[in-house]
Every structure is written in C-alpha cells, then in structure tokens.
C-alpha cells in the first residue's frame, strides 16, 4: 500500500498505528492527506489506504495491520450509509471488535451534524463521529485520550477477547465521542 513518504520522522515508539481510509464510493483524497499529516505530526504511524477503498480491502488491511485506531473519512455524502455497512464488517472480525474506530467528514447529503445520524453511527459501533461542523481540535483530543501503543499492547489480549456480539456499542464510546462542537471547521476545505 502506497503511503505518503514519512517526511518528518516524528513517529514515536509510543505512537499509535493508525489506518486512515475512505470508503468504496468516495474518490476524494485531500481529506485523507490532511489526516495523515495531522496524525504523523502527533507522533503516530499512518497507513493510508487512499481513494475508493472496497469493503473487503478495508477489512483485510485492518486485519493485517491490527491498528490501534481506524479513521474513516468520507466527503461525498454517502459516508453515512457506507459507514453503517463498513462498521458491521469491521466489528464482525474478532481482532477488530474493540479497535477504536471513528468516522468523519461530510457524511450525508442533507447538511451537517444531524443528531440522529451521529447516534445511529455510534450505536452501530463507532467510537466517535466527527461531522463537518466539528473541529479538528475535537478529533485531536479524541486521539490524545487514547492510551499509548505500549500500554495498549499490554492490555490488548483483554481488549481483543471481546466477542463480536459484545455489550452495547455505546458502552465502548469514549467520553469525547458524543460532544458536539458546532463551530466551523478548517477541515471544511477538504470537502
């Protein structure tokens, strides 16, 4: 898988292994480029899957990499429907059942921040929903609240032992996930 060549060498041992991806119908990539740069600046290692990622490829790459975080970004207005489908496939894999997974961008064609849409995405298994109205700072604080890779590795067996039909997904949602930040986002230009 091609990646933006690491240009800054900031990845730290404690940094997370992150998969950044979009979904099958979305050919936009500036949003993915931005997220990769942002995460690398925060010291994480990114595998960027690029444009139009089919479900099977998305799942197989995540199973192969077993990342600490999966970031789905979509800006073509199909992200809500595509995202509901993809999270089922990810959560059905035992090794990905508890992997922190977030979705963001412009997820629907009917404007931003529809609370129902966010609720159903969280209920479907996402740990965070970052619609266009929510700031980059919000996403950063979510990532910052994740345990470092080293400690995750220690606790991984317990995490990953969760069965696919685990308790209510909302139980896993991190505290930041449901916060709303209605301010305009600089990431708007990526749409």
């Amino acid at each position, binding site marked *: *898988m*091609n*990646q*933006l*060549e690491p*240009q*800054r060498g900031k990845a730290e041992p404690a940094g997370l292994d992150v998969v950044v991806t979009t979904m099958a*119908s979305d*050919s*936009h*990539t*500036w949003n*993915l*480029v*931005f997220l990769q*740069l*942002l995460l690398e*600046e925060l010291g994480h290692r990114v595998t*960027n*899957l*690029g*444009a*139009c*990622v089919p479900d099977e490829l998305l799942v197989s790459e995540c199973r192969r990499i077993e990342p600490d975080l999966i970031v789905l970004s979509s*800006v*073509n207005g199909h992200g809500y429907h595509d995202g509901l489908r993809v999270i089922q496939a990810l959560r059905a894999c035992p090794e990905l059942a508890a992997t922190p997974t977030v979705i963001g961008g*412009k997820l629907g064609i009917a*404007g*931003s921040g529809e609370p129902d849409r966010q609720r159903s995405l969280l209920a479907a298994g996402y740990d965070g929903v970052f619609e266009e109205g929510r700031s980059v700072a919000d996403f950063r604080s979510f990532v910052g609240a994740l345990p470092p890779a080293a400690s995750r590795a220690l606790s991984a067996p317990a995490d990953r032992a969760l069965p696919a039909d685990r308790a209510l997904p909302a139980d896993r949602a991190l505290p930041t996930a449901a916060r709303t930040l209605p301010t305009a986002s*600089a*990431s*708007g*230009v*990526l*749409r």
Partner: protein
Amino acid sequence: MTVPATAPRGDAPATPGFGAFVARARAAGTLVVQPRMGMADPLRMRDGLLATRGAAATTVGTITLDSYTRTGDLAAARSALNEGVGLNGYPIASHPVDVTRAVLRGVSDARFPVQVRHGSAMPEHIIRALLAVGLDATEGGPVSYCLPYSRTPLSEAVACWRRSCELLASLREFGAEPHLETFGGCLMGQLCPPSLLIAVSVLEALFFRQHGLRSISLSYAQQPDRVQDEEALTVLGRLADELLPDVDRHLVLYAYMGVFPRTPGGARLLLEDAARLAVRTGAARLIVKTTAEAHRIPTVGENVTALETAAAAAAAERLRPPLTAVPDTGIEAEARALIGAVLELDTDIGRALVRAFAAGYLDVPYCLHPDNAGRARSSLGPDGRLHWSNVGSMPIAGLSGGPRPPILGSADLLGALSHVQWSYDSRAAETPDLDRTPAAPRELGHTTP
C-alpha cells in the same frame, strides 16, 4: 494569405466535428466556452444543452456522466433510474440509445458539438455508448483519470485507454474526426507545479495520437498565480506545436479546479481571470465554473450566466494588447526533462508511462494511488506561486530557480488548499460593485471532470 473567418454558428455548411468547430471559432477570434453539466433525466439534459446552445457566447455542449457509469457499475445506474433515485450525471450507458438520440436531435450538430465528460479510468463502455448515440468527442486519459480518482492499477487503465482510443479513432474510417481531450493538465486539481501538469497533458496527447486520434486538445487548469500560468500555457502550446505537428489541436483551460471562492463576487472574479488568461495565452476553449461551485451542483441558469460572464471577459481582453514576452522560470526545462525521460523508456507510450511511474520519473504530489511513488512534494510559496519542495526521483532537480518552500504540515496544507478561495473572496469584499450575498456552507471542493 487571409482566410475569411467563418462564424462558428453561421449559416454556411460547416465541417462537422468538435475540433473543427473550435478551430473555426479560433480563426474568428472567439473563445469557445463550455460548462460541466449532466442530469439523469433526458428532458432536463436536453433543456440544459439547449440553454447552453442559446447562451450569448460561442459554446459547445457537455454531457457529464454520473459516478456509477463512471466506475462501470451499470447495474447501480440502472436501479437508480428505475427507483427514481437521484444521479449526479447522465447515465449514457443505461438510457436506451433512442432516448439519447432524441435528447441530441436538433441540438447537437456541426454548429453545436457535444462532448461527453466522464472521469473514468476504464472508459471502454462509455466510448461504446457515446459512439452508439452518434457522439464523437470526449476527454480523460490513462494517467489523469487513474491516479487521482481511482485505485485501478495504472497498467490496466493504460490497456483500457488504448482500446478506447482505438475504438474512438475507428470512426475516422467513416470520414468523421473524433476528438479527445487530455485531463492531464488537472491531476489532483491543485498544488501541482505546472511542469508536471504540462508533461502529463502532452504525454497523454502523444498516447492518444499513437492510438489513432488526429484531433486532440491539451488541458491545463488555472492555478493560483497568473504570471506562472501564462508561462505554463505558453510552454504547453510550444510543446504541442513541436511534438504534435500533424494533428488538429488546441489548448483548453479549466477554470480553477481547487477549493472555489464562496462568494458570488469571488467566484466571478476567478472565472473572469480564467477567461482573460485563456485569451492572453492562445487557449481556444475554456471550461467554466459557476458561482455555485463552492456550494452545490450548479443549475442550468447558473451555468449560462458563467458562460456569458466568461465570454464577455474574453471579448474585453481581446481589445487589450496581446501578451508579448513571458518570463522563463524553468517550467519549460522541467516539462521537457519529464517528457524526455518518459519517452526514452519505451517507444510504446503506454508502457513508458507505466515504467515512468514505477521509477518515480513521474510522481504526482499528494497522490495516494498505489502506483504513484508518493515522494514528490509541492507547496504554495510566499510569492503565491507553486513550487517543488521535493522532486523525489523526477529528473528535474535544480532545473528551476526560486525558493524550495518547506514541506507542508497539516495546518499549512489547509492554508495552501484554501489560498485561492480566501484571496478571491477577500478581493470581492473589497470591490463594492460586486454582488455580495452571505456565504453559504461549503460544499465539495473537488475536481470533477
């Protein structure tokens, strides 16, 4: 010798063909303007074409296809039609041939040629569909519709584009002159230095020629700096004259393809600058953007307004002294080095392109496609011009002077991507006679064909 200029839509019999129409307009001293426009409903598509034809401008028509047809998912296009679900373009391979012929009847002719715009890395089914309805002009390219917008392996896109070119060129046996336009002058839409845009546009044109086309347009997309664009288009024209002397050819300029101004005034200023740029540099055709670009798919009316705005700006620019000298900042040297390095790899241009990307001799900055080396980096300099920050393995190190801006971080990337939007919206705010309606939320700042 003076050849009397024929008005493109005069009464005299006209040679059919997209390229011939543009050549007549150029000889008459008129810029051809063209919208991006595609509706799923045949009647609305026909009305859109009629409105384009009727605009107070020298226009050609566009049928933009939907994204299901683009990606070859004809079943999805069919079921969307059956269920009345909205499509974002005209599904030319799904409507019956008779329906599309009826859309075009009395609209598309030698005085109003229509081009199909699609965005497909694998366009063979689209070429077959447009030939079946009597059309013969389209656009794209094996690199420019593969790397930025798909994950199709480049070698597969090259093979499909070779078959597609041969299919389109087969019309020549029947006396027609099919036309194909490169999309290589756009690539990721923004932040690509001009030399690479020129090189890919020229290489795609050479690929089209190698596979039988004899009427070709070479694209270039407007970038942030006018003077840099003047140099780039001058170089593109020079290289086209030199490398494609035996084909009917013209330059086509795309109004800015990146994040567009949000205000109507800013959008209009940017479009007018594009029209002036086209006239000054000898581009024969301009593809417009509308004031709705930053917000949504434009209406037919907004497209007609954009066509007329661009035509008026172009006509005014013709009255001004022509561009005489452009500075040489190394764009030509870089473009020649890139083209030369690719052509040396293989006499088959398609194979040469695949090998060039594998070797990193061509490397599109910020392109995530698996077949792109991904080492090159570009940036917007403090001078407002595009520069290389890292040329990767491209054979152009040291060929242009000027600064090497540092590699962009995430915040600076956002700034560079929205620089044109910001600066034109600011200019509009300083210009009191432009209508200033409040900015609506941003929509897709994306390049569609």
